[in-house]
């Protein structure tokens, strides 16, 4: 640099460079509302009353499905077109803490809507500590103390009066592949709960885990399903019967994170959305009557679910028979950078 201010620490890291912008504290924000994705369910039952052959009626709802997490919605006022940098102050830390991550960042007028997904419902709520460059901060101060730098165009790039971002830790972390490994169910019992091992990343030890805040948007997601069908036909009480039931259960998972200790960040998934569709039909006739067939075959979901209303999964491009984004796979499972700071710097 030909002029200006360049400050380095003992490790040679650049702390302040007046040529470049620095993030400053925009504010601490609590959520405006909290929500969950509604269960997406549908099903039809026809002529199964009194049918022979033990036609199954169990679990036509959401029994055995894993609990969903919560979505906290924040509205962050900030100037300009770039989103604020929002750090999560989690509700708790440690090996039993829920995982949390920013899942939606959307501009809404002059505010940014930030949605934080937390893998479990808690009485407390995550708090956001938000940062932006000085050009996007409209806060004012009457303080005349501190250090302020300008670039060659005369634009302020650092101003200690607005609490510059201090980041003791940064690194990268990758979500597990699938949220659930192993069997996804048996008969009418579903097993889609998150059981993937946590992915842990170590960082330089800090003094107090409960003071740490982290910036690490959720980008990875996974979707897994369990399908089951049964049918039977035969003779019962001088009547011929036939029944067929087919089901699909699914969960959509979002990656999220937690401060596991004073020196580790962990990643895993939480259940963001879930659904269940089924069709159960039967017929019976006298032993001499003709039997109506219910041979659904391999294309059952393409055929059956086209008859079921698309429910409220409003943001999916629903192909014929597809009532989940995708199945038994994952997306965006590449390393994501994170930054860790301390709430006490800004409280």
């Amino acid at each position, binding site marked *: 640099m030909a002029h200006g201010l360049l400050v380095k620490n003992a490790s040679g890291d650049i702390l302040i460079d007046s040529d470049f*912008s620095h993030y400053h504290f925009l504010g601490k924000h609590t959520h405006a509302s909290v929500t969950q994705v509604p269960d997406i369910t549908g099903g039809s039952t026809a002529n199964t009353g009194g049918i022979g052959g033990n036609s199954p009626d169990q679990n036509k709802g959401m029994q055995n499905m894993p609990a969903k997490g919560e979505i906290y919605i924040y509205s962050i006022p900030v100037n300009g077109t770039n*989103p604020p940098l929002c750090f999560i102050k989690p509700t708790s830390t440690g090996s039993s803490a829920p995982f949390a991550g920013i899942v939606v960042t*959307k*501009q809404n007028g002059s505010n940014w809507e930030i949605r934080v997904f937390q893998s479990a419902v808690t009485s407390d709520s995550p708090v956001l500590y938000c940062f932006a460059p000085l050009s996007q901060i409209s806060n004012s101060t009457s303080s005349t103390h*501190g250090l302020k730098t300008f670039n060659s165009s005369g634009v302020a790039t650092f101003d200690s009066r607005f609490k510059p971002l201090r980041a003791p830790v940064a690194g990268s972390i990758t979500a597990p592949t699938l949220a659930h490994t192993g069997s996804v169910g048996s008969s009418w019992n579903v097993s889609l709960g998150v059981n993937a091992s946590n992915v842990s990343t170590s960082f330089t030890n800090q003094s107090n885990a409960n003071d740490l805040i982290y910036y690490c948007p959720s980008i990875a997601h996974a979707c897994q399903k369990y399908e089951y069908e049964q049918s039977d036909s035969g003779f019962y009480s001088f009547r011929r019967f036939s029944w067929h039931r087919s089901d699909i259960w699914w969960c959509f998972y979002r990656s999220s994170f937690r401060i596991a200790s004073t020196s580790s960040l962990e990643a895993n998934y939480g259940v963001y959305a879930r659904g269940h569709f089924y069709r159960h039909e039967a017929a019976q006739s006298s032993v001499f009557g003709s039997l109506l067939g219910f041979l659904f075959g391999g294309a059952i979901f393409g055929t059956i679910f086209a008859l079921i209303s698309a429910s409220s999964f409003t943001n999916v491009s629903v192909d014929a028979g597809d009532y989940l*984004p995708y199945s038994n796979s994952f*997306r965006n499972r590449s390393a994501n950078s994170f930054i860790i700071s301390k709430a006490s710097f800004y409280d």
Partner: protein
Amino acid sequence: MSYGMEIFDADGDEIFSTTDSTWTLLGVYVTNANTSTNHTGVPVMPTRLVTRTMIDQISGDDEAYVHTFSLSGSTLTTTAPSGSDTIKTVFTVFGK
């Protein structure tokens, strides 16, 4: 501290010091949905960090790919994995 710099506010509370670590903002680069873009002119610092944020996903409950990227020299190469399901992505490049 025995050497370095400390900055205090008017109340005498430390706001920043050279014992801290932080990240300077080198640039914010936006790649639109379903497109691949090379962003040039990215400033170079000894250590850089790139974060990705998916933008304008309405509810976040659908299949959404985030752009992949590579940063080499002054070029940030961003690639859409899907031509139809890749979300608008903001890349924030930090340096120190």
